């Protein structure tokens, strides 16, 4: 469908930690303009893969190309990465977090920021330390979606947050997704009601890809929801 260059190509990626082989030769090619679900239980290698792509973890072997170039200082400008672990300064206000973060990026969209703040029902004057976990998750999403980055990586954005924040985040992603010029990878260990977000899904198990494909084709060929397929594969 898309003739443009893939936004991300991963070839035979390997990463070993002292006690565990986190990635056992992962290969992937992501077209521009899609939302991908990276699905697998805890410890399947999702975070390691995202961190390698973000240039935060050095792989032991294989190649990564982001719009044709390996992870580098330059490629970090192309990627908005929201790690699973929070790194917000709790003494800042929401507005200060946004100002602080936006200063790092040339592709920051002030109008998207305002739109997202309102949609996420975040009070710019509120201190981070007073926000619930769900509200902090919303704020972290704003930080990624306010950028016009070609590649957005969201590591477990729905993990451990209340259903209403979860809903807001799903809808926020749908609303802000910039289509052709953007690709989003979302990792999750609980597919639940987020599956309608995904164009394609990758099932990761113990560092290997065990299933991958278009979400709609999988529904058609298996007669199952992605959530049911997930439960079946990882039962």
């Amino acid at each position: 469908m898309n003739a443009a260059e893939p936004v991300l190509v991963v070839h035979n990626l390997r990463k070993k930690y002292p006690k565990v082989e986190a990635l056992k030769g992962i290969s992937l090619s992501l077209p521009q303009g899609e939302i991908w679900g990276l699905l697998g239980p805890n410890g399947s290698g999702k975070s390691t893969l995202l961190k390698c792509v973000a240039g935060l973890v050095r792989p032991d072997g294989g190649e990564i190309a982001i719009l044709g170039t390996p992870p580098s200082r330059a490629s970090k400008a192309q990627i908005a990465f929201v790690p699973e672990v929070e790194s917000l300064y709790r003494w800042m206000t929401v507005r200060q977090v946004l100002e602080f973060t936006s200063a790092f990026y040339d592709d920051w969209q002030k109008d998207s920021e305002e739109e997202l703040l309102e949609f996420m029902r975040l009070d710019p004057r509120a201190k981070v330390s007073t926000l619930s976990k769900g509200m902090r998750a919303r704020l972290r999403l704003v930080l990624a979606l306010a950028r016009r980055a070609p590649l957005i990586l969201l590591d477990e954005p729905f993990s451990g947050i209340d259903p209403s924040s979860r809903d807001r985040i799903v809808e926020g992603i749908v609303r802000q997704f910039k289509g052709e010029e953007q690709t989003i990878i979302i990792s999750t260990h609980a597919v639940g009601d987020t599956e309608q977000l995904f164009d394609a899904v990758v099932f990761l198990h113990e560092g290997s890809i065990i299933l991958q494909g278009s979400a709609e084709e999988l529904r058609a060929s298996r007669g199952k929801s992605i959530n049911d397929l997930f439960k079946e594969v990882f039962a």
Partner: protein
Amino acid sequence: MDLEFSTSIPIYLQIIEEFKRQIATGQLRPGDKLPSQRDLAAQLKVNANTVQRAYREMEILGLVETLRGQGTFVRQTEEIVEGTREEMLTNLVDDFVAAMQSLGLTMADTLELVKTRFRERELAQGGLKDERS
């Protein structure tokens, strides 16, 4: 669009079915404008590419047309409305007949049952109307 979709069937197909239903029942009439793809995606909380695919298929089917810069509209063709209606009716009757057969009913039994139920419903609806007037 108020759509409770099943995630075990391709979502774009369910969006098409819902529009077909609205066209066949007259909720959407020829010339009516469809919601923008972005709005519908936000409303249904589905990926915009899924909505785009549904709209593209509906265009190929001749149900709708997209006018550059103006939006997507239900086509002006009565025969498409008629065709969609017929298709829906056929599907409904097929499902019904299959269900009756699986319960072991003959055609005669089924027809008799349909007639009875039809009359009862009409009576009930007529009764309601009378009460209101």
